[in-house]
């Protein structure tokens, strides 16, 4: 088991390195750097102005050097400005290089850099935004998991029955509707004067500080609906399979009540597959978070990703990529380990 975990962490590290290098290379393409200069300097700067702006801020050097600086294996740049001051990666702008400024400042030194759009340290931004998305995901899970399991079990315990058909149709419909469709429909029906119900709010901006049923339910439901159908389908399949096992028939023949057969004999075995699906669904739901957070103006991790990408905010994008790699691989790790715990027939070694 120890070896297995070690190997997984090594893979995680390697993936993060590769991914950040790719992101770094793409965000450092000339047109993207021009975009940085224009959003930071002035939208309507001329080409020579852009060039001097970039050169003065250390963007003009070769890709491996810049990547090395970000990682913290190479010393940060120090560039003399036209007005005689110096600017350095590790100390900002000053009249002269401060003696206590570190030579290297990168990820290895714990410095994730500064976001060019938000003008704040990347670490702090990601922490705040991830916490907000965590809050959203927590409520999504609270709503989605019990609902999906209930639907799946109810549908799977009597395969082919009318309940099964009805619940399966609902699950397929909900999982086949992408968030950008269901979100808009939910807003129109429940939050706008177009239909006139106006039970909830069509924006979740105020939910960042003070989440209530009124301002937070719609985004939560939008994400939950999408994931729910899929998990319910998986649970149903697993449940239906278990219900055909010999030991279930034995239990029934023994005279155990159907209710007890389902709850005591079938459920535990039927939940092994959905557990994996739920864990794998978490990174998948991060996609939905990007759409839903933008749609409902909830400024979490997904929204940050959109802002970072559309403004070519290099260091913030790198931070976001690392977090994504960790989330994806960590949930897979948990699902693997959990699978072993739940099913003694499987071993990771």
């Amino acid at each position, binding site marked *: 088991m120890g070896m297995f975990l070690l190997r997984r962490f090594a893979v995680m590290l390697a993936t993060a390195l590769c991914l950040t290098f790719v992101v770094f290379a793409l965000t450092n393409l000339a047109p993207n750097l021009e975009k940085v200069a224009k959003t930071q*300097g002035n939208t309507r700067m001329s080409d020579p102005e852009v060039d001097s702006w970039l050169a003065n801020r250390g963007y003009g050097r070769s890709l491996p050097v810049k990547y090395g600086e970000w990682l913290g294996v190479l010393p940060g740049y120090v560039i003399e400005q036209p007005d005689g001051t110096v600017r350095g990666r590790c100390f900002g702008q000053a009249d002269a290089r401060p003696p206590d400024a570190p030579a290297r400042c990168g990820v290895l030194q714990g410095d994730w850099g500064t976001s060019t759009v938000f003008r704040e340290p990347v670490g702090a931004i990601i922490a705040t935004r991830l916490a907000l998305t965590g809050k959203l995901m927590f409520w999504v899970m609270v709503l989605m998991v019990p609902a999906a399991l209930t639907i799946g079990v109810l549908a799977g315990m009597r395969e082919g029955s009318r309940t099964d058909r009805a619940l399966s149709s609902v699950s397929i419909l909900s999982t086949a509707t992408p968030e950008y469709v269901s979100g808009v429909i939910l807003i129109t029906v429940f939050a706008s004067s177009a239909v006139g119900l106006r039970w909830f*709010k069509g924006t979740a901006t105020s939910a960042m500080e003070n989440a209530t049923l009124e301002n937070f339910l719609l985004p939560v439901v939008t994400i939950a609906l999408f994931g729910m159908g899929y998990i319910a389908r998986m649970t149903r399949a697993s449940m239906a399979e278990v219900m055909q096992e010999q030991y279930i028939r034995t239990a029934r023949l023994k005279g155990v009540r159907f209710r007890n057969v389902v709850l005591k004999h079938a459920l535990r075995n039927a939940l092994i597959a959905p557990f994996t699906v739920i864990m794998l669904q978490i990174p998948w739901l991060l996609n939905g978070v990007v759409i839903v957070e933008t749609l409902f103006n909830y400024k979490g991790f997904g929204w940050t990703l959109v802002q970072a990408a559309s403004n070519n905010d290099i260091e913030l994008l790198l931070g976001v990529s690392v977090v994504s790699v960790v989330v994806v691989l960590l949930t897979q790790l948990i699902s693997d380990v959990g699978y072993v715990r739940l099913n003694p027939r499987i071993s990771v070694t």
Partner: protein
Amino acid sequence: MTGSPDRIHPAARMHADEFRAGRISRREFLTRATALGVTATAAYGLIGAARPALAQGATPEQGGTLRIQQEIIALKDPRLWDWTEIGNFGRTWLEYLIEYNRDGTFRGMLAESWEVNDDATEFVFRLRPNVTWSNGDAFTAEDVVHNFRRWSDASVEGNSMATRMGNLVDPDTSALREGAVTAEDDLTVRVVLPTPDITLIASLSDYPAAITHRSYGGGDIMEDPIGTGPYRPVSYEVGIRGVVERSETPWWGTDVYGGPYLDRIEYIDYGTDPAASLSAIEAGEVDMLYESVGEFIEIMDSLDLQKSEAITSNTLVIRTNQKAEVDGRTPYGEAAVRRALAMAVDNSVLLELGYSGLGTVAENHHVSPIHPEYAPVDRLPYDPDQARTILEEAGMGDYTHTLVSLDDGYQRDTCDAVAAQLRDAGINVERQILPGSTYWNDWLKFPFSATEWNGRPLGVQVLGLAYRSGVPWNESGYASDEFDDLLTQANGIADADTRSEVMAKIEKLMLQDGVIIQPYWRSTFRHSVPNLLGAEMHPAFEIHPYKLGFAS
């Protein structure tokens, strides 16, 4: 120049006669007279009208928190400001020498009054006494001279004030011309221009002209926010929100103009999608919008909100780039080709389809009827058949034009309508729609694209920013010595009527050279909750925080 503050510029009296003779509108009269240094009250007096009270009937009550929907864009050095939204936030603690008002008048803020000599080469500003910075320093002429020096530093990348300062910038040193701006005493500043420039007053009211403390040298303005304004910034999170609260320092303007009324103002970002703004005001999460646009205006009208409209010289310019190369040739190098494109579209149809008819039809020369120097000229006829013939003669019959636009409501719709009309005329057009982050990277270079231009109080201003040869924002690649000369000439004529004679020549030249297709002047709209006062839409989208307050 006599130098007496009571002196009324002779041209202002002349404009008053013109107004009485019905030759100019009230709005035009007010813009012209106040730009010449006549106070708004005196200007109304000249035409025998009483100045309308600002908050009609109702004075807002003290206190309350106002929430405004507005994009929160990264702050920077004021002279680099490139979005009015930044100006709106900064205006809460940084003030201007001069304020441009909804009715087209200029009035003094930090400058109590100003005088212009007859050929617009010498301006004397009398500063408002007893104004205190939030750090306790007195506001003096030294601060103003410091700002003029910062504005005129053309070596700073993206300094948009340097273009506005025009010939105050010494081309050899890229800095303020020696001796051009001097402090006569603590409260008097004299500005001497080498050549006449009537746009100076309007430029000083524009949003990058915020007056900063003499110790400010650039960098983060939130770090040590010293200001003269009635509020102080509390927090600013890009893309999320910015908050200001009432400053502890008493505000000079309370006795002069009244206000401030609110305790706290929150600017909240709902992104660029107008549907989100609608949701926000519908849900009661904001009290006032930055701007209501497109089909959302009608929806918001149906809600319990108050609407205000500003007639503006804001517009959309669909231009070809005369220098752009496509596959080794310059398709728009010839004036005939450009004229043909303009002839193939009907501007009134573009107004209807592109902007739901919420504006007035324009005439392809970027001078608006609300500009004081506007001169009516004959427009090019709408004649798609002839347009097609001209293009064929020029060897452009089979050419496929690519019309690029921003992915933004009315800009996209208008360009779609342009493309449809061109296709109807038998001209091949492809459309390319880009998101803002991509579009603004190349906005100057696209061979054929559309750009939104916000209005300026005077007609010569935009022409100088966008069409003079080689200026940074010249997106049409237009370079005409004749145009440049005429514009320089117009810039030296303080009297708008005489200027409009030169303007007529400029407008004809613009049409002759087919520089742009400029379909309409937009009216702009803003919705707010019914009990909010002072939130009326402004032609330049300005929000004046001290005027805002809730009705009791």
